[in-house]
């Protein structure tokens, strides 16, 4: 068991290294000099050379990468060019905000998706099944930013029940869990929940239908187990995979929140990314992407490991 864990970790480490290297290289993908965003274009050659030495751009690539990585591991991701604040602070504050809507969205999506999926799987080819399939196709075909806009149109502009943008009257700095603030959460989280809902519904439907068609279920019923008992069995069998899918969806939401956060002006990591891109704030861009990507890899690892622990069918070691 420990051997399996260590091996899995050993597999994840080179991936993380590769991911870090890719993030690092993003700066060099950008057309033009990395200095372009720091210095005005008409800076003297002398100044340019000084800045290059200061930032270490004149050193070989590998050396730059190692230095950057070393600093990153110690928690130093540089400073935002726009705000001069440490990148790490900005990113982690934003991550907290994104997690709020992402976790809520995942919970909503998972609950409703599992519900639809169960109904569909149990009552195959009935109207419930058709409805659930319909919902799941919608879920994955909707551009979520468009859905966000539509919800804003309906609930904010027309009905005026919920606010359209922002993170509360005091901004993200002062958050309390009261209606004043929570109402800002609802629309973004709801919008984000659609894709996970669709995917969870589809997965659960397939799982439930598959389990119900297996012979051991016939055996259970033949031995007199009532429907409730069968239901518990089905849940037990679906749970590991369904939860794994949920975990992965949370990861995707964390990484892909930029569109929703732009629509709702929610001050999360996506919003931060948006700023970084348009201000060509490369340290901020690099740092944010690195944190998000590594988060995703770590989450995948966690989901894998948990699945192995809880699903007796998977071979370990």
């Amino acid at each position: 068991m420990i051997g399996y864990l260590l091996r899995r970790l050993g597999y994840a480490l080179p991936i993380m290294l590769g991911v870090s290297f890719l993030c690092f290289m993003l700066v060099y993908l950008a057309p033009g000099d990395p200095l372009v965003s720091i210095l005005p274009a008409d800076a003297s050659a002398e100044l340019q050379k000084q800045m290059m030495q200061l930032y270490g751009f004149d050193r070989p690539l590998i050396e730059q990468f190692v230095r950057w990585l070393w600093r990153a591991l110690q928690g130093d991701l540089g400073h935002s060019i726009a705000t001069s604040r440490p990148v790490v602070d900005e990113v982690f504050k934003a991550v907290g905000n994104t997690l709020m809507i992402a976790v809520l969205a995942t919970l909503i999506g998972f609950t409703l998706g599992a519900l639809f999926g169960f109904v569909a799987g149990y009552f195959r080819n009935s109207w419930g099944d058709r409805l659930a399939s319909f919902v799941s196709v919608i879920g994955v075909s909707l551009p979520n930013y468009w859905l966000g806009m539509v919800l804003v149109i309906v609930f904010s502009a027309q009905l005026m029940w919920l606010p359209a943008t922002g993170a509360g009257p005091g901004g993200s700095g002062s958050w309390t869990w009261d209606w004043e603030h929570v109402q800002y959460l609802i629309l973004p989280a709801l919008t984000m929940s659609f894709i996970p809902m669709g995917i969870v519904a589809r997965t659960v439907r397939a799982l439930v239908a598959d389990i119900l068609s297996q012979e051991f279920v016939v055996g259970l019923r033949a031995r007199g187990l009532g429907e409730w008992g069968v239901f518990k069995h089905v849940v037990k069998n679906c749970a590991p995979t369904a939860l794994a899918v949920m975990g992965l969806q949370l990861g995707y939401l964390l990484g892909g929140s930029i569109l929703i956060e732009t629509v709702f002006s929610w001050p999360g990591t996506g919003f931060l990314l948006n700023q970084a891109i348009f201000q060509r704030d490369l340290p901020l861009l690099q740092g944010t992407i690195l944190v998000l990507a590594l988060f995703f890899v770590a989450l995948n690892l966690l989901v894998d490991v948990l699945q192995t622990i809880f699903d007796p069918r998977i071979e370990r070691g």
Partner: protein
Amino acid sequence: MKPTHSARDPRDLGGPRQPLLSVRELKKHFPLKKTGLGLRGPRLAVRAVDGISFDILKGETLGVVGESGCGKSTTARLLMQLTPQDSGELVFDGLSLGSPGLSLRDYRRQTQMVFQDSYSSLNPRMTVEDSIAFGPTVHGVSQREALSRAHDLLARVGLEPARFAGRYPHELSGGQRQRVNIARALALEPRLIILDESVSALDKSVEAQVLNLLQDLKQAFGLTYVFISHDLNVVRYMSDRVLVMYLGEVVEVASADALFEQPLHPYTAALLRSMPTTDPLRRTEQAPLSGDPPNPIDPPSGCRFHTRCPDAQAICRTRTPVFGEAMPGRSVACLKYEPGSGYAASTIALKEVPHA
């Protein structure tokens, strides 16, 4: 394809006394994936084939028998070079495989195989005639000529070309597919055909037809067969000589009749006793072989069979028998027949005389 049994094959090099294929000390181990950190202890491996040597004579059918896991299928794959061996040599009609005289490509023209699963051995996307014609086209035969040959072969194996050539594998029954596989094997005009459990998956009646077909083809084309099977009755029917394998090693080789009438190796004897029979005078009171075969990763010391052998003695645990000729035409790997091995022969004598 015209050669008949009596005419000499123009490709024949060494004459009838030279073995068609001589297998020398073939070894194949499959290393296991690392467990734990894999850093401690020697790397374990499944010793699938552990140094086997035997000859396949021209024009014979050599049957190969043994339990599951004894290495039969690995041996078949090694003979076809679908898996390269770790060590050991294959000598085909006097030429060593890999030497300048015999390239892998030339070898593959002369040795072909018919697999067990008739469905998975045919490309589901190719028609029957295309599957058969593929081999010849690889070796330079024109498409037209290859298809024509395919049609001839289909007719030869009993499938009417007009009806079957344009069909896909899923449209045929198991027996028909196996005939197609045989036709495909024949398309390259080989001298040696390896039949790896080729009839095991067929219904009995179909099996009988295919076996008879195989006998006909052997006569007509002067073929040599290696017939691998777990069905001892079929092996007896088809084979001239029989080779018995146990846990990656050859334990006995003899002519079919001799082997079935008087098995020398205790394992062979046990195998034969486990054949079900409808003769009321031959009743089985005890299971002839007990337990599962030992682990090929860590085979028993000395003679590998000693853990299940009814005639085992203390010496069998420490001394490994040598595979040698016990009588003319019969080879066996058992300490009983090895002079000077330390095996107490008197026990045999004791058994034959119940009352002292």
